[in-house]
Structures are given as C-alpha cells and as structure tokens.
C-alpha cells in the first residue's frame, strides 16, 4: 500500500493497457539522494536557515576574525578606557568614541571587539567540544544499552545515577576539585577548557543516551536488522552500518540542543565565578563582569548577552529544522 505520489507521475506515461496495468513501473524521477531530500526540506524551514546562517557567520567570525582584527584582547590601554561603541556617536555626540575601538573598550581599556571575538572563540569551542563529547558518550551508551541486552540494565542504572546527580552543585564541586591538577597539566586555559568541556559533557549526555537507546531498541526490532543478521553481519557491522545511520536524526537533534546547553552552561559557570580564569574572556564572563556597569555601558552587557542568546537561538532553530527535515513523516509532505 504505497502512498507515494510518484504513482501519479507514472500514470502520465502509461495508459491502462493489460500489460501496462500490471507492470511494476519504477519512478520516472531521477534518483534523489536522501541527503538532498533532507536539505530541500530543511531549506524550507526559514528559522533553521536563518539559524544556520547566523551560526556559520558567528563561527566564521570567531575563527577568522582575530586574524583580520588583530588587536590583542588582553592589551591594556588605560588611557583609552571606557570608550563607547562607535555607533553611540549617532545620538550622543559627546560620547567617548574612537574608530580604533569600534565597539568601545572596558574599564582597563581592553578592546571590546577583540574581546568579543576571543570570547566567542572560547564559548564556541567549549560549546562544540562539550557537545561532541556529550553526544559521543550519549550515543555510545545508548547504542550499547539498546543493542546488548546484557548491558542494558547496568548502563541504564548508570544513566539514572547521573540523572539523579544534581548538576550544578556537581559542576561547581568538580571545578574546585580538578581545576588545579588539570591546570598543572594543561596550563590555565587548557586545563580549564578540558575541565569545563568534560563537566558539561559528563552532566549532559543522559538525554541523548536515553533517546538513542529507545530508538535503537525500536530499530533493532525492524526487520532489516533481522535481515542483516540473517545474512551474517557481525554485531559490529550491524551497529555501524544499520543501526547508527538510522539513529542519526535524534543524535543530530540532540547535538544541536547540546551545543546550546553547553554554551549556556559555560556562561552560567562564568557568571557564578567558577569558569575560565579572569584573563581569558568568554561571553559569559564578559556579561557577568559588565552587569555592574549596565546602565552606563549597556553595550558591554548587551553585546555578549545578545551574542550568547542569538547563538543559542540559532542553534535551537537549527535543531528544530533538523528535526523536521529528518522526520520522514514531515518530509513526505
């Protein structure tokens, strides 16, 4: 009982002759790859496209920006402190602005634009790394638990355990706990980076694991897996070739959401004062530091705040679009 619209296209070509009636015509449309299908559906989701655009823009900006705008974000220039962004000159001609400080400078004269770029780098790096790690753990646990019955109980109890561990306290605790040894090993920034990334990942993989496990359980019951087993596929191959590609969509979606959570968590940590070292700007830190001077220098709060929110917003939209695009029920329309 096919429900494919292609049947109608066939009709145009074949009249109901006896033979024609029973021949099992194939589609006349050229083969479309699944990827293209998904892409064309994805493209229709305006929010997701905007999200993708903005995310690419931000990523590119923080990656390439520091090579174009080569001001050292840590460079103190105490005489040029408290500059306003150049655009304030539009309504306030007396504002202290300068073309050399396009987005102004902070109370020690550090350049805001350079800090935004450097901070974005840190935030994005943390976001991506933590997301990848978390998705990796989540997928591994989910697939193993779903595929191997013997492991299911143990792994799911483990997941419960991590779910029951309250996240923020644990996070704060681990920061105080491992900051020093890691810093010794990888330097102040490297150590903190590893620490934050791993903490965010360790405390956020559980939903992915649960979703993936559920999907694996369902897919395991699909006949093509049984078919693959009957043609002698080894478990490893079964997972790689048959299971993983089919759980890709929940993984991608939780990856998108994971990226958002990671960025927010990092900035929350910075806000609570347990994030990166002080001379290492991240958006969250810039925001937290600037809250004090919010009225006089609203841009110092707004710029990082908007950057965080927009990034997370676009990632969320991206996730939404991905979910729609990957859902065959919606794609079929």
């Amino acid at each position, binding site marked *: 009982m096919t429900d494919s619209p292609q049947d109608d296209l066939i009709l145009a070509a074949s009249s109901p002759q006896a033979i024609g009636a029973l021949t099992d015509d194939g589609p006349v449309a050229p083969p479309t790859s699944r990827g293209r299908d998904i892409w064309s559906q994805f493209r229709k989701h305006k*929010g997701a496209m905007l999200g993708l655009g903005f995310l690419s823009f931000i990523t590119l900006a923080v990656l390439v920006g520091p090579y174009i705008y080569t001001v050292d974000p840590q460079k103190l220039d105490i005489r040029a402190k408290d500059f306003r962004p150049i655009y304030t000159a539009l309504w306030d001609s007396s504002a202290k602005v300068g073309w050399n400080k396009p987005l102004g400078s902070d109370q020690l004269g550090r350049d805001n634009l350079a800090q935004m770029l450097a901070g974005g780098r840190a935030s994005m790096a943390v976001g991506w790394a933590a997301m990848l790690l978390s998705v990796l753990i989540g997928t591994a646990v989910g697939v193993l638990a779903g595929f191997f019955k013997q492991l299911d109980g143990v792994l799911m*109890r483990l997941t*419960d*355990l991590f*779910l*029951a*561990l*309250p996240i*923020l*306290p*644990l996070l*704060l*605790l*681990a920061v*105080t*706990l491992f900051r*020093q040894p890691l810093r010794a090993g990888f330097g102040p920034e490297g150590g903190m980076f590893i620490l934050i990334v791993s903490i965010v990942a360790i405390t956020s993989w559980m939903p992915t694991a649960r979703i993936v496990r559920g999907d694996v359980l369902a897919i395991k019951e699909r006949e093509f897996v049984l078919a693959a087993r009957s043609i002698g596929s080894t478990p490893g191959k079964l997972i790689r070739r048959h299971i993983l590609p089919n759980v890709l969509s929940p993984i991608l979606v939780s990856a998108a959401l994971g990226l*958002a959570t990671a960025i*927010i968590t990092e*900035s*929350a940590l910075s*806000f*609570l004062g347990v994030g990166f070292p002080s001379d290492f700007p991240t958006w*969250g830190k810039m*925001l*937290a530091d600037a*809250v004090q001077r*919010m*009225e006089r220098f609203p841009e110092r*709060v707004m710029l990082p*705040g908007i950057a*965080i*929110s*927009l990034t*997370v*917003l676009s990632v*969320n*939209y991206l996730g*939404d679009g991905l979910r729609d695009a990957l859902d065959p*029920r919606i794609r079929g329309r």
Partner: protein
Amino acid sequence: MLTYATRRTILAIPTLLFISFVIFMLLQLAPGDPMAQVPLTVPPDVKQKMREALGLGAPPLVQYWKWLVQVFWIEPQVLIDWIFGTSLAEGKLRVISWQTRSPVMDIILQRIPQTLWVVGVAYVVAILIALPIGVYSAYRQYSVFDQAGTFVTMIGFSIPPFFTGPLLIVIFSVISLETWWLPVLPSIYDTTHVVNDWQSFGFQVKQMTMPVMVLAFQITAQLSRYMRASMLDNLGQDYVRTARAKGLSEAVVVNVHVLRNSMIPVITVIALGIPAIFGGAIITETVFKVNGIGQLLLTALFANDLPMVMTLTFIFAVLIVVFNLIADILYGLLDPRIRYD
C-alpha cells in the same frame, strides 16, 4: 502496578546510597577548607583547633557513616518527635552545619517556603501559560501564532537568566518607569515579609514578580514546546479521524480526545521538573537575592560547609529519584495501555 512501584522503590535504595557515597567522596576530595572564610587575622593553629572542633579530623569513612546514621536514623526521629511530641532524638547529634553550627534540616526547612513561593509559583504560572500556547500552536501549525509562539519560546530557551535578571532589575527597579505606568519593583527579595492583609499581599506579589517572570519565561518555553510536539504527534493519529467522523465538534476533538492523549507525556515531564522547584533556581535566586534553597546551596558550597552541601545534594537526589518514579507511575495511570507487570 504495586509490585512495579515496590520494585522500583527497592531498587532506588542502593542507587541512592551509592549516590550519597559518590557525593560524599567527591566532597571529601574537594580541596576547599571551611576555614577559608575566616579572616587571616586568625592564626593557623587556632584555625586548626576550630577544624578539629568540627570533627574534620576523623577518617572519611567514619564521617560518612556518622552522616548516614544522622540522616537515616536520627533525623527521622527528630521528625517523629516534632509530630508526636515524643523525645526519641533527645541529645542525639544531628547533622550540623559547619557555618552556622545549627542542624542542617532546620535551615533547609526555613528556606523551603521562599523557594516554593517563588519557584513554585513560577512553575504554576508557566504551566498555565504553556499548555494553551502549546495546544493552540500545534492545532494551527505553521500559522502566524505558531511561528510567533515558536520564536518566543525559542528565545525563552536561549536567553540565560543571568541576562534577563539584571535587565529586569534595571528596567523595573533602577530606571523607574513610573511615567509609563510600570510599577517599581523591589530588587531585593524580603524573606521576612509576612502576608496578612491585602496590602502586604500586594507587596508580596510585587517582590515576586521579577524572579517569577524570569523563571516562568524559561519554563513556559520548555513546556510549550513539549506540549506542541505531543499535540502534533496525536493530531495525526487515526483516532482523531474517527472522532471527527462521529461528528464531534473541533473543540471536543482537540480539547478532549487529542489533549487527553497529549497530556500523558507532558504530565510526566511536569512531574520530572518538580525536583527542580525544590532545588531552587541558583542563578535566579542569586540575582534577586531570594534566599532560597539554591542560594543556600551556593553559599554552602563556597563556604565549604560539607554537611550542608552533602545533605542538600542528597535531598535533591532523593527528590529526583522519587519524581522519576512518580512520573513513571503517573504514566501508567494516565495511559491505560501501560501496565507495569
């Protein structure tokens, strides 16, 4: 169902014990020192004596055992005493906070009302707003309302509370916008405020407005997404067509048939969120100086008040486990297809 619940409860006990052990050991390993906040003018040997007075010298396992006994044996007795006026726990050592030298449980009880008021009200407000929004945007999928709703909820997802919080304070407390008919709201939550008449109730509402706004915004965002997704799932089901074929009005089809089914996963999500109410909202509480549980945990953590941190995190763990169980059981109750055993 009963066996299922029993089984889960029994399974939860070793899990919780294990969790408590893990937390305890992590805290033990933490390099902080409860004396770090004592000024430098107090000499080290005095600090050492103070530490010993707190019982810090004992080996970790002994401390852990003591804590277990205090939490599982003595505290329940205190509760019984309190309810029945007996004196079982007379003279027994309770879990004592290092910062305040007073029983941890007493302080927690003191903090719970604030947290429940603020976070709980936010949760209720959020539910009341989120569900209709979710239902309507699913029903009119891709309509303007849906698009706008999606946008707003996405923003709710995306803007961290430590951004919205100070923003609101500046808007409502600092730059007084009275000229625009906006009320001036207190930036510092008064935990001693007693509601006894309309005026004091008004003040309570005022001081709760901002934290509740910030929190409810976030929760609304999440819940309405869930509600929408769940509604969409169910709107495509065959039974909806059956209901329409019976000639039922759209209101009945959507608000009775579809809603009832869609509520099943959403209610469990709501149940799973309840532990977070008790956990307080660390950031929001910090921003608005609501001295609730979240703020308690944060200060205890920074002061290295291990008994307090330990007990609080353990209580959260218990709540999470319990509400997980409740969510599962609710699922079973709401969905007649699911029968545990």
